[in-house]
């Protein structure tokens, strides 16, 4: 998916933006076959811990252990529904499986690459899982580091 859509590129090697010589710039194609208006954006709920505590439900100790108060503060803000939908309809996951799929595709394009390493094929070595998409045409990449920063939470702790 990621590799197949990123065929012709200008400016950056992984943008997935196709260039059409007749009409100028073309945007990354949609990855989901659902009409834009059918999507339902789920907005996270902020939590008023003081109100909960006053009404007999004190969960502050649990959240202190998780160091999540800055995350809940962030949740009380605007959600741009149209932008989120535009992002989602073109989103794709670039993970280890996708990276591995790039190699046979490169061999199909150029059979002389058979048996060569990823670097020799001209492919970037896989570093980490990314979500790739565009927002109003602007190509974006979201990683775990970006999510951690936006959540105001350190990327440490249990993950099973």
């Amino acid at each position: 998916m990621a590799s197949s859509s990123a065929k012709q590129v200008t400016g950056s090697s992984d943008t997935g933006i196709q260039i059409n010589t007749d009409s100028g710039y073309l945007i990354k194609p949609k990855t989901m076959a659902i009409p834009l208006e059918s999507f339902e954006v789920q907005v996270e709920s902020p939590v008023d811990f003081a109100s909960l505590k006053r009404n007999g439900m004190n969960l502050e100790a649990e959240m202190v252990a998780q160091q999540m108060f800055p995350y809940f503060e962030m949740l009380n803000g605007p959600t741009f529904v149209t932008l989120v939908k535009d992002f989602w309809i073109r989103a794709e996951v670039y993970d280890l499986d996708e990276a591995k799929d790039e190699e046979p595709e490169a061999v199909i394009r150029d059979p002389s690459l058979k048996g060569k390493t990823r670097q020799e094929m001209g492919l970037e070595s896989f570093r980490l899982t990314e979500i790739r998409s565009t927002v109003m045409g602007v190509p974006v990449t979201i990683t775990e580091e970006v999510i951690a920063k936006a959540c105001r939470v350190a990327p440490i702790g249990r993950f099973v």
Partner: protein
Amino acid sequence: MLLKFLTECFLQKGEGSDQPSADHKRVLCFLASFNKINLPRYIMHHLCWAIKEGIRSKRKQIPCGRLLSEIFTQGKILEILRRNNLASNNFIRTRTGKIINGKTLQNMKIIKKFSPDEKDLKESTAPTKLMKDFPSILQERNHEFLSKLVAESVKESGICLDAETSEIQMFLLSKSEGRGLLLMLAQKPMKLKPRSQRRTRLRHPILKIALLLSPRGKEEKENPL
């Protein structure tokens, strides 16, 4: 209540899925036992799963709408849209999450009557401050190139982010009848003859709303025909 936090604040579920997933069970266990979880990794995992499900089985729910919006803000997407005159400060259809507070406990029948306070948290649409050290999400930084991409995207998708027209557009998108005509009306100022010269009357309520919200409609509202 921890399960409510989990399904409404971290890893939102789709419709009709009453049974918690394996991730939900694990995170719930860690929350209850004061074990710190790697929240960013769980959210990344959940987003990747939801995208793959959207591609594979047409899942319609988009989780983490607020978090994605925050990433767009901090990642300077809004700045690019403003620079290209696609958005003003009060632009784009926005939503806020419903606050979980004492009233929620009453709705869940955990308490009989909740006691409100003037200091209770209010829903906010105020943008957050930009962080200086936020990692870049842009794959391309050439302003001219980005402007061309944005212009092409608007042309291709027809999405309009202006506050007035986007409201009409999204309202009209939710209606199945006469979508093409109504979208056209939402995107273009209406040019109507004075009422006395019209052969037909505007009977359809959607047409009336489009007229009132369009720039031309405002003029007409100020100077009724």
